[in-house]
């Protein structure tokens, strides 16, 4: 490592309107190192990397490359400065060939035509550099996700970048594909590139990175050489510490017969043999890092993705467990998804119409005519009960703030009193006050007798409500902890040996 760093970002800040995305972002990269960038959801990693990639501009702060300060104007400029960005979501075009994808915005030309032979040769050479043998003439749609990722990387290194950003490159890769990718990263490092590696998987980070920078709440909280830190320390810094007194209610141990039992639920490439029992009145916290399969598990339980194995049993009115199809279970579940704007509320509908939508059968007469007064009365009651701040229940949901939208989503389930609630990141993107209200609401649901599966990537939040923890890693439940589990125990559960081998 030479003395002059390849990249130095210092005190970088960025606001989006009133929302502060980044307060104090710092990152120092050296040539020939793999530098892991870690942080929970909303910590500011993506903002920092988007600034580096020229996707967005910074408000304040300095970016210095090889000792010279730079202003990055747009992604094309960043690319010209030798910065390559491998995005998390695939940006390959399925119906074009591998070679075409790699040169999409800048083909090698012979006269007005694409110099096909040269393009193929160059593509093959680049693919060889990332160590794969994909046919440059194969259509991208015939490739696996891992191979597509490699194509993206090959495209990114086309202009011999000095800095390469990998934004969660492994989140959708299988084991062998991941190995292949790590090999590629090793090669790039050996060739002298500085590599930023964003991942939520501690085992990966500790395996391939040289140094680790951790961010939290828009600030860089520290940087360590891998050899000088531990997984526990990194997780601790990522998530911060929590005071246990903050609990909304003391852990509640339900003695009732189970309401739902999932046996060996397997779905998609990730969810593998999950067993889950939920009892009335308890809040089960599903704890795991991003990409551990939390959302995928919910999708499987709700029939949004098909089960490849396993069964789900649900108690009937008589308390007897019977096998139930996931789609049928969804008809009886209060489901709050993380993407409330796309799946939670219908934005052009009013508050009353949104709340009314799943309850129309109760709000209509025998001819299916909606009793608008009844609908508004119900909405008004629920909105004031949950403290939805709006001019009236006729206000369009799209004009509400995030917290109020989420309260509307909760409200629409309350009238039918579902016995099961699944809350997938219900507080995502909300401010502290709104978060607290949503958590109180969650406890109220449980106190009224519902079983609640609560998912959050913020441990502070989970620890305020969960009566019991199921720890998920790589699509498997690796630990079960009681509600009294300490912060350290929970941290350890996602960073210890057992959880890292979750998929093994």
């Amino acid at each position, binding site marked *: 490592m030479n003395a002059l760093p390849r990249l130095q970002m210092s005190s970088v800040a960025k606001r*989006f*309107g*009133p*929302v502060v*995305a980044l307060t104090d972002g710092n990152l120092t990269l050296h040539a020939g190192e793999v530098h892991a960038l870690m942080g929970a*959801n*909303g*910590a*500011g*990693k*993506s*903002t920092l990397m*988007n600034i580096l990639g020229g996707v*967005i501009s910074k408000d304040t702060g300095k970016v210095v490359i090889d000792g010279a300060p730079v202003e990055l104007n747009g992604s094309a400029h960043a690319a010209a400065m030798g910065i390559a960005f491998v995005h*998390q979501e695939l940006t390959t075009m399925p119906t074009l060939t591998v070679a075409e994808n790699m040169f999409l915005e800048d083909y090698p030309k012979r006269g007005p035509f694409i110099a096909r032979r040269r393009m193929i040769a160059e593509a093959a050479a680049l693919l060889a550099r990332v160590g794969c043998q994909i046919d440059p003439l194969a259509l991208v749609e015939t490739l696996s996700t891992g191979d597509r990722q490699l194509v993206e990387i090959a495209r990114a290194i086309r202009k011999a970048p000095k800095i390469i950003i990998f*934004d*969660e490159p492994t989140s959708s890769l299988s084991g062998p594909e991941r190995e292949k990718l790590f090999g590629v990263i090793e090669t790039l490092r050996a060739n002298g590139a500085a590599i930023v590696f*964003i991942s939520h998987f501690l085992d990966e980070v500790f395996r391939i990175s040289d140094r680790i920078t951790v961010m939290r709440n828009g600030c860089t909280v520290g940087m360590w050489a891998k050899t000088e830190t531990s997984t526990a320390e990194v997780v601790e810094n990522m998530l911060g510490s929590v005071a246990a007194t903050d609990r909304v209610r003391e852990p509640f141990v339900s003695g009732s017969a189970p309401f739902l039992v999932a046996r060996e639920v397997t779905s998609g490439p990730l969810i593998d043999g999950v067993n889950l029992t939920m009892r009335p009145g308890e809040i089960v916290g599903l704890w795991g890092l*991003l990409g551990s399969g939390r959302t995928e598990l919910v999708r499987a339980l709700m029939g949004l993705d098909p089960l490849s194995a396993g069964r789900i049993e649900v108690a009937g009115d008589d308390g007897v467990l019977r096998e139930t199809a996931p789609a049928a279970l*969804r*008809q009886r579940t209060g*489901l709050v*998804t993380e993407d409330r*704007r*796309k*799946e*939670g*509320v*219908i*934005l*052009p*509908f009013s508050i009353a*119409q*949104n709340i*009314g*939508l*799943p309850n*129309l*059968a109760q709000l*209509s007469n025998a*001819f*299916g*005519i*909606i009793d*608008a007064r009844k609908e508004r009365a119900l909405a008004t009651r629920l909105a004031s009960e949950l403290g939805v701040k709006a*001019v009236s229940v006729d*206000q*369009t949901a799209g*004009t*509400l*703030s*995030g917290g109020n*939208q989420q309260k509307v989503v909760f409200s*629409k389930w309350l009238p039918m009193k579902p016995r099961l609630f699944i809350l997938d990141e219900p507080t*995502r*993107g909300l*401010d502290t006050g709104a978060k607290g209200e949503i958590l109180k609401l969650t406890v109220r649901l449980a106190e009224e007798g519902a079983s609640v599966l609560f998912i959050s990537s913020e441990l502070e939040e989970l620890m305020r409500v969960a009566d019991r923890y199921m720890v998920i890693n790589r699509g498997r439940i690796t630990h079960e902890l009681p509600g009294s589990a300490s912060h350290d125990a929970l941290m350890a559960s996602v960073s210890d040996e057992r959880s890292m081998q979750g998929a093994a």
Partner: protein
Amino acid sequence: MTAELTPLTKQPETGGATDRIGRPGFRIDVNTLVLAALCAVVLGLLFTMYVEAPTFFRVNNLINILVQASIVGILAIGLSFVLIGGGIDLSMPATLALSGVIGAICMRDMQSAWIGPVVMLTAGTAIGAFNGYAVAYLRMAPFVVTLATMTVAGGAAVWITGSQSISDYPLEFEDFFLFRFLRLPLSVWLFAACALIAAFLLNRTMFGRYIRAVGFNPAAASISRVPVSRVLCLTYVIAGFLASLTAILLIARLGSASASLASDSLLLDIISACVIGRVSIYGGVGNPLQAALGAVAVTLISNSLNQLGVSYFASLVIKGGIIVLFVYLDRFVRRSA
């Protein structure tokens, strides 16, 4: 990770309070504005007619316009169900022709006036159900499905009739449907009834709310337990049913059934009526009453331009321009809302 990026793609959620209160009102304002513009055009047209061609205002001509509008209007009401549900149905005129031809043949062969309407309605509904099944359950693109149905149904109508018109069915059929009440023929009353019932269905009932929810956002609707596929399918069934209802009225008025009932210009008029009636082609938004008014406007424009001596050809240009203008305005309104 995407959460950190969301402010890039959407408005910050903590907008000023005045802004929030202001927006719904603004939207209504623009809507009113567009409607006012349409009214101004129509009134201007009527005034010109008053000066240039006073015969236009003879009661018979006005009734004639309403009768013409009722055909386009009932079809437009059917189409507005499909559009509000987020789809499109190009096959309505062809459905009209095929169900009409089949019904007329049944009437002729069985020499029974009553069998005609029954067969027509059944056939139209069945064609609609076929479209609905393909779109909602087989998840095929509405545009292609209904395009193919248009070709098949239109082709079948031509084939069955051998391009001949059918008129030797019992006359009671026409007698009944040409019945007038308060000087207005049955078709006008049915048109009004359809518009009112459709508006009621869409604005006041569970089913209507479901259609709008599906048209706006099928994913969110599905999570809110809306039976998305069934609702989607039913919108096409309604369109098919109303197409065959139109067939009855049109055949009774023309006095014969033929494959040429499905003219290209009819399809254009229906879509124009919906677009002018501000039924959004992006789903969710629209009122069949306005679509019905749109149909009246389209007919009025054709008819009065015709009487003013403007050629049919020029009226095509004008109608085409109006469609593009209205969709542009629609986009504009949606973006600012």
